[in-house]
């Protein structure tokens, strides 16, 4: 054993110097299941050869067994996770081994964050809250942790019930953290979106709309926030603002955003103004677009394809494009799916490196095992997302049918009251559009979509109702 460790150390040094896997190492290394030390040696050697993804397997083996190899294996595993930004296998491993605690405070915080996020994902909200609360506010991981904590605290499934004010406090605190690069900006945007959603849930419509407005335009979630902010505006009686912001999601610049619900909100606003022809046009267009997609998705979800097939659905550009309507792009942008695909790509590249260096041996076996797990985890995420979308589309199509029914009822009422709506609408002038302030630029909307104008659209619409109705409750 000692002889093997020394040899592994020497070969590790060689691997570092060569910046590639040593064929000799791969040949002599024993299967990591044999002993934690062997697993650690193999994992460290793979990391030295910059094969972080391949090292996950042996390092997990070493870290899961008590003994002298456990602590260094855990540290190496967390180091590799950080370099890879791996979000599937290592968090799951840490959640399954809650007693493992790294020595350094930085790695402790990382382990807590990963455990907390994994627990939140799997619905273990109590564990998630406990883990996330232990990350100090001064930690570089604090923004991510506090965002996740805000989500946990606002979750209706939280044991003891949601704590909305505490959730708002955590989410607001995230906005106070500057820097952090792209990831930091994304976390702040996510927190802002979550803040807006909670405020909407608390029926604080003005504050919610303002919070939606503050979601960064550069963030991944901006298109989502754009349409969602139509809800507080609509509920507070700002039909023009609601229709304007929802209409903006038709911009071709947002073609990669999957926002079918925006069309239902658009139809609802128009229905509320009794603009039945317009409502029908929007709903017909919605159904024509999304019913075929819903049917395709239902087949796809029910068929329960194999993991490689489900991964290929997102990874292969042609298959992804076949999903249509921005769904493929939105799947690709899902952080967990994106992380899974990234890991699979890395594993593929490392596999090529390993096989080019020699027979591969146990390292290759470990890599293939990790690859299978990563593929399954990614496929699970794809499947879960597709199932969500499929259920959501079915729900939205039903909502469209309900709106159609209500519309038919409204039209019948007009007929019963002997109201000619066309004449009624012709007799009513369009209310003036808001003119804005001195520092506002006013642009006509004439079919062109300028990226800088998206999100600043306002609408004015005639009221086609003989008498005003109460604002319907939405969401």
């Amino acid at each position: 054993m000692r002889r093997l460790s020394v040899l592994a150390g020497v070969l590790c040094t060689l691997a570092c110097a060569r910046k590639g896997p040593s064929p000799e190492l791969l040949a002599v290394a024993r299967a990591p299941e044999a002993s934690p030390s062997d697993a650690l040696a193999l994992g460290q050697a793979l990391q030295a050869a910059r094969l972080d993804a391949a090292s996950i397997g042996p390092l997990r083996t070493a870290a899961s067994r008590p003994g002298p190899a456990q602590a260094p294996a855990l540290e190496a595993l967390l180091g590799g996770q950080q370099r890879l930004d791996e979000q599937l296998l290592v968090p799951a491993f840490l959640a399954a081994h809650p007693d493992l605690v790294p020595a350094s405070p930085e790695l402790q915080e990382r382990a807590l964050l990963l455990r907390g996020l994994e627990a939140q994902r799997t619905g273990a909200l109590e564990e998630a809250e406990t883990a996330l609360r232990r990350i100090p506010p001064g930690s570089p991981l604090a923004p991510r942790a506090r965002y996740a904590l805000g989500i946990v605290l606002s979750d209706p499934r939280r044991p003891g019930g949601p704590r909305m004010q505490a959730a708002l406090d955590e989410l607001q605190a995230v906005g106070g953290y500057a820097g952090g690069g792209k990831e930091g900006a994304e976390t702040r945007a996510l927190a802002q979106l979550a803040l807006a959603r909670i405020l909407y849930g608390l029926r604080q419509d003005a504050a919610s709309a303002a919070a939606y407005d503050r979601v960064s335009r550069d963030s991944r979630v901006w298109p989502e926030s754009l349409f969602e902010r139509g809800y507080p505006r609509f509920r507070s009686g700002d039909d023009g603002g609601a229709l304007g912001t929802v209409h903006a999601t038709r911009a071709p610049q947002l073609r990669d955003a999957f926002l079918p619900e925006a069309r239902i909100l658009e139809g609802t606003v128009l229905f509320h103004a009794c603009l039945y022809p317009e409502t029908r046009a929007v709903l017909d267009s919605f159904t024509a677009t999304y019913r075929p997609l819903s049917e395709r998705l239902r087949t796809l979800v029910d068929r329960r394809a194999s993991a490689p097939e489900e991964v290929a659905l997102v990874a292969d550009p042609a298959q992804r494009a076949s999903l249509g309507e921005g769904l493929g792009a939105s799947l690709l942008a899902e952080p967990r799916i994106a992380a899974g695909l990234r890991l699979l790509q890395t594993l593929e590249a490392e596999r090529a490196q390993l096989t080019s260096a020699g027979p591969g041996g146990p390292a290759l076996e470990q890599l293939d095992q990790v690859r299978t797990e990563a593929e399954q985890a990614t496929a699970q995420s794809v499947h879960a997302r597709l199932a969500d979308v499929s259920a959501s589309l079915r729900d939205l199509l039903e909502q469209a049918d309900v709106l159609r029914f209500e519309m038919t009822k409204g039209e019948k009422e007009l007929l019963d009251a002997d109201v000619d709506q066309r004449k009624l609408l012709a007799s009513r002038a369009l209310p003036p559009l808001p003119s804005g302030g001195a520092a506002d630029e006013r642009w006509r909307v004439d079919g062109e979509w300028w990226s800088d104008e998206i999100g600043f659209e306002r609408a004015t619409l005639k009221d086609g109702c003989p008498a005003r109705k109460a604002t319907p409750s939405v969401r």
Partner: protein
Amino acid sequence: MTVLGALLLVTALGAAPEPAPPADPLGGSPNVQFRVLEPKPFPDALRHELTLQPFVPQIGSTFTTHWLSSLTYTFHATEWLGLRVQPFWVWHAQRSRFSSELLSRVRQDAAAPSSVMLQWGAIAAPEWSPIRGKFTAFGGIVRYGFVLFAGAGVGGTEIELKTSDAVGPATYGSTGLRMVATGGAGFRVQLGQRWTVRLEVQDLIHWGGVSHINGCNATDLQTLDAQRTAGVITGAGVSGQCNVSAFQGSTGAGYDRSNDVSIARAKVNEGGTDTLHVVGVYLGFGVEL
């Protein structure tokens, strides 16, 4: 095609932001209308803008040619209104080619009031930006405004006395301060938070007759001419404003300045008035503070 025309063409060509999206079910509805109310990315109100127009050629001149440089300070009181103060310096003013040919071929000189040239000046004018637009260029969106302005100021003027010939270069006499009115229009392009480019056409208008040259009126010039005929220009008996030294001595090329007296006298005695336009194309580069 003029520079202005080229800019308009570029603006029109660059105005397509994105390919057309799928049909919008609300597109043709008479019951719904949309408008974009976008906060100005670079507000102008209460900001100061300094624009340097290093080379301004005169266009459409008849008897004179001016090349000048100008510095424009604009205070944007609101998003739409500003006040500009614009000193300028004419570093090249001379008889136009047409006027020179007229003189050399048919011995016909332009009337003195039509030959007065600007030397320098400063004008103040309110500025109005009634129209704004934008176009795509270099992967981004460039905003521009159409600006109109009109105002007034003062300018120093001069007139050519001796034409440029084998004896030496042309000589000039000051025709004093004149009121200058101005009007112009153009485009102001904003490049980010700080930088601006302006392309404007501006008319500097001055008018009047030639009653003094180098401060000397007709009587002074008659006196000086008599002194020159007698042998020496002493300057005795002329008014205090008359700059006698301008007619004394010789130029670097050896031209006797006293010869200018009779030319100046003839120009002053011509009488009449004219309104002169110095229309220039002002390409300026500015910074907004």
